[in-house]
């Protein structure tokens, strides 16, 4: 589910921008990023006993809510005597905003947020605003299951993680179609352009204000640039100016063949899902392919839904959990983060009837038995095989690139 990282210009994002503005204006307090005070893991577990963790996370999926409240919450209570409180939010910015407000008000050790499901722009805001608790990775026993050599884990949307968050899931963009209606879906951007022209009104994408719409536009951008390699790193205006017109031309040429002649775009991925469910459009896509299987199980998508990846690859990211600097239950939050990385929790989460999310841990670092269990996991027929998907993974861009592309789309394509 990628809605936790929605970059929609919702009222929340606007509020959040306003809050950021004030936070920058106000002299930042001398409270620098805190380091862990615990000597070893046993001390952390002892301090965590009897604690409560308020975990703020996107709350719009009953299966994820159930996994977190029932499985994770139950295990934490039983194994560590920790009470997990899942707090469902619409947009991660709400949690970031809460911490920011507390910092403004001088609430530096008794905050209301202990853990946030986060990545991308929200992580950047929190890290740069010194709103995170950092430097505790070597304390977590399960940290050794994470391959920190993998740049797509060590960097969250181009920003170094620096022990300020713990990976939880991996996600990679994929397309879905109804195999009963569409026989040969387009498996590359040029094929998609041609397909859209032959099937007018059958394709659309959410506006760039939507997280998933923005990712789709980046795929077109990568195509226009001949691959992502030249776009990695910090934002470069000259490169942008050289590539952007090609990308806008592709999208503008496609426009008359889109759903409702491109006069309007769905404003959220949920709307695109509804259009696909209602058979108004033939293609759907999502940053988290597990959603295809979940939607089929929930009766939203037809049983004949199948998924595919673009020949040139699709963009992937890692999403994490982070502990705010003012959490009063850091030890319990660390135990929670560590448990989320455990084989048990990652394996449970990977089951298709639970969530079907790709693990954030490196399967090769597990025992042979555990590896076999992962290998034997049945795959939902509507969800593309993780191995096929990960073979075509493309890196995510620096947030400055992303916002430049989003703004450019608004100005040059949406108008």
């Amino acid at each position: 589910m990628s809605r936790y990282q929605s970059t929609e210009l919702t009222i929340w994002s606007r509020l959040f921008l306003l809050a950021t503005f004030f936070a920058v204006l106000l002299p930042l307090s001398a409270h620098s990023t805190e380091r862990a005070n615990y000597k070893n893991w046993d001390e952390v577990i002892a301090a965590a006993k009897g604690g409560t963790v308020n975990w703020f996370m996107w709350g719009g999926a009953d299966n994820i809510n159930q996994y977190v409240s029932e499985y994770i919450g139950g295990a934490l209570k039983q194994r560590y005597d920790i009470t997990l409180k899942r707090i469902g939010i619409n947009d991660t910015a709400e949690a970031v905003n809460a911490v920011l407000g507390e910092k403004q008000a001088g609430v530096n050790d008794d905050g209301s947020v202990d853990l946030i499901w986060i990545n991308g722009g929200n992580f950047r805001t929190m890290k740069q605003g010194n709103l995170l608790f950092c430097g505790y990775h070597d304390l977590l026993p399960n940290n050794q299951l994470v391959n920190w050599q993998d740049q797509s884990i060590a960097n969250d949307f181009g920003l170094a993680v620096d022990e300020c968050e713990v990976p939880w899931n991996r996600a990679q963009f994929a397309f879905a179609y109804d195999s009963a209606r569409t026989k040969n879906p387009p498996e590359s951007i040029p094929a998609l352009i041609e397909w859209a022209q032959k099937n007018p009104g059958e394709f659309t994408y959410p506006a760039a204000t939507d997280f998933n719409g923005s990712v789709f536009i980046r795929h077109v951008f990568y195509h226009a640039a001949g691959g992502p390699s030249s776009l990695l790193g910090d934002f470069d205006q000259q490169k942008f100016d050289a590539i952007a017109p090609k990308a806008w031309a592709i999208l503008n040429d496609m426009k008359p063949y889109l759903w409702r002649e491109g006069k309007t775009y769905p404003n959220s991925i949920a709307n695109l899902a509804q259009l696909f469910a209602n058979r108004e459009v033939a293609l759907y896509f999502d940053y988290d392919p597990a959603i295809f299987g979940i939607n089929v199980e929930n009766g939203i998508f037809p049983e004949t839904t199948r998924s595919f990846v673009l020949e040139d690859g699709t963009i992937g990211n890692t999403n994490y959990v982070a502990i705010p600097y003012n959490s009063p239950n850091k030890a319990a939050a660390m135990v929670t983060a560590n448990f989320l990385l455990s084989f048990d929790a990652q394996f449970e989460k990977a089951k298709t009837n639970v969530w079907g999310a790709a693990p954030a841990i490196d399967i090769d670092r597990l025992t042979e038995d555990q590896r076999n269990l992962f290998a034997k996991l049945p795959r939902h027929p509507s969800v593309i095989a993780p191995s096929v998907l990960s073979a075509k993974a493309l890196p995510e861009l620096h947030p400055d690139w992303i916002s430049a592309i989003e703004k450019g789309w608004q100005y040059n394509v949406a108008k």
Partner: protein
Amino acid sequence: MRILPAVMCDLEKELEVKRQRIESGEGLSWLTWFSLILLISWLILPLIPLAVWSISRSWFFPDITPSAYSLRAWSYVFSNTSEVLPALGVTTLIAFCATIVSAVIGVPAGRALGLYQFRGKAAIELLILAPTIVPGIAVALGLHVVFLNIGLAGSYLGVLIVHLIPTLPYMVLVMAGVFANYNPNTEAQARSLGASAIQTFYYVTLPAILPGLLIGSLFTFLVSWSQYILTLLIGGGRVVTLPLLLFNFASAGRNDITGAISMIYILPGVVLLLLGARHLTGRNSAAESLRQI
């Protein structure tokens, strides 16, 4: 002064004609029926798809009815994970307390505004109206910091207090209207006959203002019931009310769970409307009560 009786006479005649027309049911009746049907369709029609969604498993356009039914949404709503039932309790408690507090503040304030002329009255009326004019979201952020500083953020008390901002105007304005048609001399009469201040309020003032008070309370309850932004910000996720849970699923496009939570969410509105309907339909019942005194 001399023409006044003549004007009054004309007015009375006109009123008499109107009254006859209404009583005989001619002229206006088709309009009355039309508005009644329109009102009922507005109230009931939007609820039907919600109810159907709550028991559907898949419902694809352009089908009129779902292709598969399931009680999954309801079993989720009643599970411990969803926290819908505790949230129902919290929402009811906060709305109930907000109504009581609004009444305690709103009745004297409405009396002052309705009965007396004083310097700065217009300014005070504007200030009371302000929360209904200024969007709540504009002040919510600043309020959050204030509430954090005084230690009320994230508490039930804090959420209750912040709900008074949008609810008070309704109570005060309704009560001001009631007291504008109220004759305080009846209280003086009661007192002169030996009633205590409490007896006077209970036997004289309260019966006269009761219909207005009920309508004000109905508004107050429902305004508090539907708060989202203020609860979210001041509650900081620790005070979970039904609108917060509802928005989670509505924005995620989960129509089945949204429908099931909505069915629970509209319950108090329907109950209150049925209970209050008697008082809402009576034509100018406040004035009627006064006449009886």
